[in-house]
């Protein structure tokens, strides 16, 4: 019998085709899901049978378009049930998620999604409860016919869906495309999924990936998981972590990546919902800091969004995320307690996420902090080693200033940490506050001021002449005694002065409009940094050359020597040389070369 136009399907077809899914190939997933649900329902009914999901690709004759047959031997539908799914769809045209709440509703949604790739859908279904088979034929414009077919003896329950490609969708009906889509979505489905096109045949999920077994607690499966990662995912995972969570019904693994990643890089985790692939880049399930692992997870009880492409943000998801967070953390803590070399390797590769975690979690921090490595003025040291020395933790948070201080600090046996790298400073501050160890945040200026003062009583004249030598360079001279004795001078330049230098560099090339902006910034900085505007050159009275300078009276030579010490201090302290310094270097060397020649070859001078 034909029933036409009872329910208007146009609305929902439009919704499914145009607004819900990111990609038409999800129709494969939808048909698979219907097959799986049908077989499960038939099992639950008590039937014993060999479950089968078969996809048959019928290639076109001459000029035709390919056709696809999707068959399962699940519970099937009766005529009444077909009417019911249509009615459910008709009612739920606004809320897909509502429709998916029932078996028939989900069936209908899944079926209608096929209109994304096919102009026509044919459904032939035989209910396990008996009765005649039913044929439903629907068009993309929303019209359909429904007929009851003659009842056969010993009819097998099941459903067959037939689709024919349109001109613009024939590539979805390609054997390789289809089999990889089926393999992708159905890799861990519990029922066999097979595809053939008359010449080729494949049982796409013949081999179950080993990671579920490992998650279930089979330690022997670990090697298999690593091999699987290497061969199927092209990933040389460093380690495998089993993940199991009551919250969300989660089982799976985290593969530790063999290369460093960043928070900003794309986290992709392969997540299955009730054994069907949900997505390969599900982002909101793992905690933010987990960007150093790739997870393969099966989730049984979280709620997907209407498109089934991600999870709905609800309390269940939050609880699941918290549980996964704990497990990943426990893995790292376990390494800290039982496998130091592996922990070191992990930190070396993935120090950023681990440090981020340590800052947020006190327990984790206490366990891991001694293993973190820092750059110090006495080489790279683990915090544990560094703390073996007495005295406060000394750190510099400015790259520039670290270099300035490093020259002198080591001579005094002070090891200063270069805490300019991400998380270093917060970690050290946390250590200090948590463990009660004193922390000194050293800045170059105050460090220099703490060096041994020299009574400048007899040196006023010397200092005045030295200042004059550097008058055009915004630099003031002072005299100190410090180690190492072979370092004649220490140049301390504040960050603020550097900023002003940056403005100067920009001003050299900027146009009128931008110069106005630069003027404003310069005025702002100068007002703010009044006190620290000048750079300081600290001459070292322990150094023989500086001692000689005290007795030097030739003013031209004295001036040049002070200027050369100024430039040398730049080089030794890794200060950038700007135009002025380069010019000074050229002129100064020139003068000194001439004096040298004159002193040794008086007659050959130019």
């Amino acid at each position, binding site marked *: 019998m034909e029933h036409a136009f009872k329910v208007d399907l146009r609305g929902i077809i439009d919704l499914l085709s145009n607004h819900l899914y*990111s990609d038409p190939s999800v129709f494969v997933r939808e048909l698979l899901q219907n097959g799986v649900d049908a077989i499960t329902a038939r099992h639950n009914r008590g039937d014993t049978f060999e479950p089968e999901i078969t996809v048959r690709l019928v290639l076109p004759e001459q000029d035709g378009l390919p056709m696809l047959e999707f068959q399962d031997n699940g519970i099937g539908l009766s005529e009444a049930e077909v009417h019911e799914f249509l009615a459910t769809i008709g009612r739920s045209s606004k809320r897909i998620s509502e429709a998916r709440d029932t078996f028939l509703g989900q069936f209908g949604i899944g079926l209608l999604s096929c209109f994304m790739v096919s102009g026509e859908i044919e459904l032939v279904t035989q209910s396990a409860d008996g009765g005649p088979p039913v044929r439903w034929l629907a068009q993309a414009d929303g019209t359909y016919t429904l007929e009851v077919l003659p009842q056969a003896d010993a009819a097998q329950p099941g459903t067959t869906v037939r689709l024919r490609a349109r001109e613009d969708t024939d590539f979805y009906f390609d054997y390789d495309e289809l089999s990889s889509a089926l393999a992708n979505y159905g890799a861990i489905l519990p029922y066999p999924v097979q595809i053939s096109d008359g010449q080729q045949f494949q049982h796409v999920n013949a081999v179950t990936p080993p990671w579920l077994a490992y998650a279930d607690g089979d330690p022997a499966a670990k090697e298999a998981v690593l091999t699987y990662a290497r061969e199927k995912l092209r990933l040389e995972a460093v380690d495998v972590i089993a993940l199991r969570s009551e919250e969300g019904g989660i089982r799976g693994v985290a593969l530790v990546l063999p290369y*460093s990643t*960043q*928070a*900003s890089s794309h986290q992709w985790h392969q997540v299955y919902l009730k054994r069907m692939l949900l997505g390969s880049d599900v982002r*909101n399930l793992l905690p*933010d800091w987990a960007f150093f692992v790739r997870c393969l997870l099966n989730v049984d009880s979280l709620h997907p*969004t*209407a*498109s089934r*492409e*991600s999870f709905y*943000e*609800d309390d269940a998801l*939050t609880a699941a995320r918290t549980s996964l967070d704990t497990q990943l953390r426990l893995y790292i803590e376990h390494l800290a307690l039982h496998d130091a070399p592996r922990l070191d390797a992990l930190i070396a590769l993935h120090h*950023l996420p681990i440090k981020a975690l340590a800052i947020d979690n006190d327990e984790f921090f206490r366990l891991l902090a001694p293993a973190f490595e820092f750059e110090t003025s006495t080489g790279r040291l683990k915090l544990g080693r560094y703390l073996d020395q007495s005295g406060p933790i000394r750190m510099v948070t*400015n*790259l*520039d200033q670290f270099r300035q201080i490093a020259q002198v600090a080591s001579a005094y046996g002070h090891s200063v940490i270069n805490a*300019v*790298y*991400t998380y270093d400073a917060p970690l050290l501050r946390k250590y200090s506050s948590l463990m009660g160890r004193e922390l000194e945040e050293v800045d170059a200026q105050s460090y220099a001021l703490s060096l041994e003062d020299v009574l400048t009583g007899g040196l006023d004249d010397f200092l005045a002449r030295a200042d004059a030598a550097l008058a055009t360079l915004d630099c003031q001279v002072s005299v100190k005694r410090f180690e190492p004795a072979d370092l004649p001078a220490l140049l301390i330049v504040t960050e603020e002065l*550097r*900023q002003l*230098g*940056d*403005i100067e*560099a*920009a*001003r*050299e*090339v*900027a*146009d009128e*409009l*931008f*110069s*106005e*902006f*630069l003027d*404003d*910034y310069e005025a*702002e900085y100068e007002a703010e940094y009044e006190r620290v505007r000048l750079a300081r050159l600290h001459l070292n009275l322990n150094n023989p050359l500086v001692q000689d300078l005290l007795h030097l009276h030739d003013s031209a030579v004295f001036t040049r020597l002070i200027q050369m010490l100024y430039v040398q201090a730049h080089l030794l302290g*890794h200060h*950038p*040389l*700007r135009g002025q310094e*380069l010019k000074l270097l050229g002129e100064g060397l020139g003068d000194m070369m001439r004096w040298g020649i004159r002193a040794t070859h008086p007659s050959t001078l130019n």
Partner: protein
Amino acid sequence: MQTFEELMALAEQQDPPEGAIPFLEQAVRLADTQQNRSAAFRARKELVQAASFGGFPDKALIHFAWLLGTFDRHRAEFQGQSYMMLWMYKWILSSAAENPAFPLPRLKKLEADFERRTREYGSGAHYLAYHRLMLAKQIGDQEQAQAAFLAWRSLPRDGLSDCEACEQNKVMGYYAWRGNHQAAAQLGQDIISRGMSCHNVPTVTHANLLRPLTALGRHEEARHAHTEGLRLARLDRHFIDTIADHLRYLTAQGQHRQALGVWSEHLGLALGVRNLVDRFEFLAASAALWAGLPETEAVTLTLPRTFALFRTDQTYLPGRLADYFRQEAAALARRFDERNGTGQFMWRLRQETEVELAGRQRAGE
């Protein structure tokens, strides 16, 4: 001594963008010393980006000025950088507008310069139209904003337009600003359900949804937007104004304990933020938060030592803090209003704090 390439590589390894800044600055200065113009250009490009997204608009502009000047003087060498220069110019345009130290006539000159360059390059006027909308919103001129909005929407997208996610987010932001809650909620939910994303989206989207959803009585959805939005924006200097929105939501919902938790967690960060619009938003939200608490009932909180009213006994009187933040916010508000020639910022501040005060008084003082 690290080489230029080593510094650039180190910069890349730091996380997030602001961690890279010290390394990039060193690289710039080193390249300058070596008089290597192309290296200096390359390092400054990275620095302008890191500074723009790391919350240092001053550094971004200073180094951009060098880039633009160098670009102009050496067209042959840097011709291939035209598109990148214009893209960066967008960031500079918007951050300049958010600095009250710069007078309006100069901002107009900047706009004109940008327009001239985009025309020369052959690109369209789409972004500039949006920029004018942004400025009109800041000034609080509803008519001008509406005209700018229509002008912007009528122009086709071009190579300099922001990504689709940003664009939709901006449209949503405009409707929210106009008080059209339905449209704003619709657009925002669409962004989220479609999984659109870029640097700002959907972090900002979630926050933008808070007021419309609450106004529409969709409280459960608003709660989700708050939970997810806060998770995304947390402890990121770039999103301090978004955090302010979340604070306002919590304050309005009467969830003062949670609000104080989020607030104290972000105070240190917020006090160091250089973008003055963002800082104003945080200060205003702070004033409203403290104004909503019983004036003389002390609150115990761990706050950073850098806070002006820091106390070693960790107890704070809401009355004092409300007054303090009101003053700080008002100081900033006055600077903006003076530059813009309107009373928009002071008006907003008054609105916000008075609502809370009234609420507190209603709650039975």
